[in-house]
């Protein structure tokens, strides 16, 4: 890769974007304008709540005692001594109603609150004076409407005032009885809010702004990407660049860097604008007094600290890289700016739920969320904004590394798009479903395409999911029968697609005989890999513990004692045949077309891993992917499905027959030689190490020394 070409292209594309008014607006001006507008809006909104009059209707005020006074001297408002400030008391308007009038009816009072005629209605009972004299308990009902913000606030104020008034009454009685101060109030509850000012502020930011930041870095990547790919095609300058000596990968890198800078700039400008707005609001807030709602709102918008901001930028760069690469790949497919815009909707639809998780209550950063694309970053941003550094730094690498990996994969995809003649020089043709299906069957080749391979995976996932829902609905969960049925679905999809879409279904599914040594290699691999797989799954469960509830569900799915043979047939042999036909047969063969062996194996292994996430537990992703890599190489080198089936069946068989195996080992007194914890199947460390070395050597042997000759058709 020639970096001077990449820099040249990057500089040109960057300058091009700076000269484009639309991009400049989206990237620079929009964020600068957005936050002051939000800030002003919040203040206005708070002020509006404050401006609304709050009418308190007091029914039966004539029964109130003279001392301590609840009302002010004129009887037109509440006693200001019961509030923090006279201004606050003045905000509650008071209207007095006799209790023998229409307001004496509870229905009338409720009506008034419901219609908003009064924010709250306080009823002074007629027996108050007697109770007061008898030092008895008095209940004072207050009508209010909790869903009405104004009514709710009025009610809280009123209760606060009544509390103080009650204390006055107690004080009065104490004086009458000559008791010491504190006699009637031995305990006073003091509310101590543990949240620091930063946390209170951060909470509001923490919910809204990861959302905005992520969305903005996506938007900041999308417009330039569409302009630099689809826009260039539309303006007829893409070909000009393609015929220059710059390679496709260099062109993608140059464009990618330009899009990345735009995306990061958008995000950072958002961050700065957000911070400056927050600072201003905080300053304005110090001008307000007391429990002013505007002050509270402003305090809640205090900006994140500089430290948080710096870490956020570090985090936003890989996220922006991920978005930039995805947008670039999508935009490379589009023929025009308009078509590019169409791709934006699905992209946003996929990203929005991932970001929305940060707004949901009770969602905290955990190892699982940390590796989910976009969500991990959004949740970590929230932790940083809130100032929860302990969580943030614990998860920082766990979020950063997967995000970098996703970005790299997306970039590879973008480069692939640029090497695809069809993507770059696609001409519009009228689409008709009929002729498309006809062409699929008429023009099928001996092997499926990559797209068909991915489609097969999607169909398998969808069918399996629907099947699982159906068994849940009919209550026939569990049992070997439903496992067998589920597995046959996985088998049917590749079989059907191979026979319909290819001219050589047997070759596609690798249904050929294999050399005996491949079976030996497969068995050796399965045996040596077993301790490694066991250790890996223990590690995974340690990092990503399976929740108690999930374990319960899994236990309920356990099968009764059906005998070893049927269990091994259904849980080891059948999945081996079905999953191998799908993943090493149709899908791997399809992915091999026009791709390096290495990439095809890794991609098929990842899809195999995802199948296990969908069908059972997220924790199986790692193991299944690792096994998928071995199985993929085995299938390609042996040119047959069967050694992989043996490997797969052995691997599953170990798990199924584990109890019997451990029991036998115990009988000959060797259980502790092999296992650290025979019950859980944890191997002694030397076995794990030996297994890792041996399986790696077998893998290397297959990879290096067993390349097929050029005439075998494998590339």
């Amino acid at each position: 890769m020639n970096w001077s070409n990449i820099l040249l292209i990057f500089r040109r594309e960057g300058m091009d974007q700076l000269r484009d008014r639309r991009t400049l607006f989206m990237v620079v001006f929009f964020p600068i304008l957005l936050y002051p507008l939000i800030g002003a809006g919040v203040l206005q909104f708070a002020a509006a709540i404050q401006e609304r009059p709050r009418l308190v209707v007091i029914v039966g005020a004539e029964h109130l005692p003279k001392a301590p006074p609840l009302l002010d001297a004129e009887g037109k408002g509440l006693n200001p001594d019961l509030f923090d400030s006279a201004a606050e008391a003045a905000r509650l308007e008071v209207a007095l109603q006799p209790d023998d009038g229409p307001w004496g009816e509870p229905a009338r009072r409720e009506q008034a609150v419901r219609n908003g005629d009064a924010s709250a209605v306080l009823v002074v009972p007629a027996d108050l004076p007697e109770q007061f004299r008898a030092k008895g308990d008095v209940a004072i009902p207050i009508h209010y409407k909790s869903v009405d913000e104004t009514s709710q606030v009025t009610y809280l104020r009123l209760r606060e005032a009544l509390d103080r008034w009650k204390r006055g009454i107690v004080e009065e009685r104490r004086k009458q009885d000559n008791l010491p101060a504190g006699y009637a109030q031995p305990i006073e509850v003091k509310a101590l809010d543990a949240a620091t000012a930063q946390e209170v502020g951060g909470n509001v930011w923490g919910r809204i702004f990861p959302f905005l930041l992520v969305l903005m870095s996506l938007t900041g990547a999308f417009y330039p990407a569409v302009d630099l790919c689809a826009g260039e095609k539309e303006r007829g300058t893409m070909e000009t660049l393609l015929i220059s000596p710059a390679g496709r990968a260099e062109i993608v890198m140059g464009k990618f860097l330009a899009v990345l800078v735009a995306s990061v700039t958008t995000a950072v400008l958002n961050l700065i604008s957000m911070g400056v707005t927050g600072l201003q609001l905080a300053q304005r807030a110090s001008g307000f007094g007391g429990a002013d709602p505007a002050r509270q709102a402003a305090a809640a918008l205090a900006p994140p600290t500089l430290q948080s901001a710096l870490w956020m930028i570090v985090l936003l760069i890989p996220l922006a890289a991920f978005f930039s690469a995805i947008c670039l790949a999508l935009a490379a497919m589009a023929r025009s700016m308009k078509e590019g815009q169409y791709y934006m909707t699905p992209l946003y639809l996929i990203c929005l739920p991932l970001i929305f998780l940060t707004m949901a209550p009770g969602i905290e950063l955990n190892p699982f969320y940390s590796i989910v694309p976009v969500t991990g970053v959004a949740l970590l941003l929230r932790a940083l904004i809130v100032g929860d550094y302990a969580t943030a730094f614990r998860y920082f690498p766990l979020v950063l590394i997967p995000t970098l990996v996703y970005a790299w994969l997306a970039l590879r995809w973008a480069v692939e798009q640029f090497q695809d003649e069809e993507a770059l020089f696609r001409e519009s043709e009228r689409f008709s479903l009929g002729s498309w299906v006809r062409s699929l069957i008429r023009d099928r080749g001996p092997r499926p395409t990559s797209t068909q391979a991915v489609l097969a995976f999607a169909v398998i996932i969808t069918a399996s999911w629907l099947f699982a829902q159906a068994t849940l609905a009919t209550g026939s969960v569990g049992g070997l029968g439903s496992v067998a049925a589920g597995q046959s679905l996985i088998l049917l999809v590749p079989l059907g697609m191979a026979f319909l879409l290819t001219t050589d279904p047997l070759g596609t599914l690798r249904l050929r005989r294999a050399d005996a040594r491949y079976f030996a290699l497969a068995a050796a691999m399965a045996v040596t890999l077993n301790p490694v797989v066991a250790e890996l799954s223990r590690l995974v469960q340690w990092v990503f513990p399976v929740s108690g509830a999930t374990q319960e569900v899994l236990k309920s799915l356990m099968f009764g004692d059906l005998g070893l043979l049927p269990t091994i047939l259904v849980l080891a042999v059948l999945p081996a045949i079905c999953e191998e036909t799908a993943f090493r047969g149709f899908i791997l063969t399809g992915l091999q077309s026009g791709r390096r062996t290495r990439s095809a194996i890794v991609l098929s292994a990842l899809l195999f891993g995802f199948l296990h996430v969908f069908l059972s537990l997220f924790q199986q992703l790692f193991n299944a992917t690792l096994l998928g890599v071995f199985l993929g190489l085995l299938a390609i080198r042996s040119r047959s499905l069967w050694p992989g089936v043996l490997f797969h069946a052995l691997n599953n068989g170990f798990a199924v027959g584990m109890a019997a195996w451990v029991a036998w080992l115990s009988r000959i007194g060797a259980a502790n030689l092999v296992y650290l914890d025979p019950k859980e199947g944890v191997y002694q460390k030397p076995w794990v190490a030996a297994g890792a070395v041996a399986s790696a050597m077998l893998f290397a042997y297959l990879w290096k020394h067993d390349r097929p000759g050029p005439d075998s058709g494998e590339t």
Partner: protein
Amino acid sequence: MIQVEHLGKSFHDYQRGWVEAVRDVSFECRPGEIFGLLGPNGAGKTTTLRILSTILRPTAGRAVVAGYDVVEHPEEVRRRIGFMSAGTGIYDRMTAWELVEYFGRLYGLPKARLRERMETVFGWLKMDDFRDVLGSKMSTGMKQKVSIARTIVHDPPVLIFDEPTSGLDILVQRVVLDKILELRDLGKTIVFSTHSMSEVQRLCSRVAIIYRGALQAQGPIDELLASHGQPDVEELFFALVERADALARADSDADVDASPARAGGPTP
């Protein structure tokens, strides 16, 4: 300098299946020569020239440009050719000077040499009065001159012009054709595609007539006219087109079962 042997290119399309856009095309072009590729729209001219410029990969045959195979050493080929077509536009948000400089640097010209080349090219094409005009503000003629400047800034030995005059008014057309002739006199190897008979007669020493993705005839114009017994290029062209159409009809009548559209996909 350019050797094309049995070149073929198939595309897939939903309506027609595998379509052979170019089939068994062979020709040669030497320095100091303009080789004309004459054919109607959709005949396969652009596909052939895109393969020569390495942005499409052939599905059959081979092509060697300036000593390098287009499939094996595409970067080396691109470094040594100048390519201009209707599809190679210029950037709206760049001035003439910036654009030519940008491509000059992509071709790896050292600064001093680039500066010198640019002064020469801008002077030669009389572009000095719109050096600092943005692409979006240029007239069609100006844009075409910038394109030519971009094509020759690195002084490549091989030049490929794919319908460089389409959509131009006659004044600009004349300028472009004159410049191509001047480039020939400088010893460049030039391939020139067009659907205009008069341009072929004016520029080309040898010509190939391409129709339905295949070459129908090629050679020096005089020899072609003589051997086909036609008075001028236009008559020759229509005679060849009619012959090709008749052959295609005969083909499809001969074997109805073998769909003529399905010419066979690329070899796996």
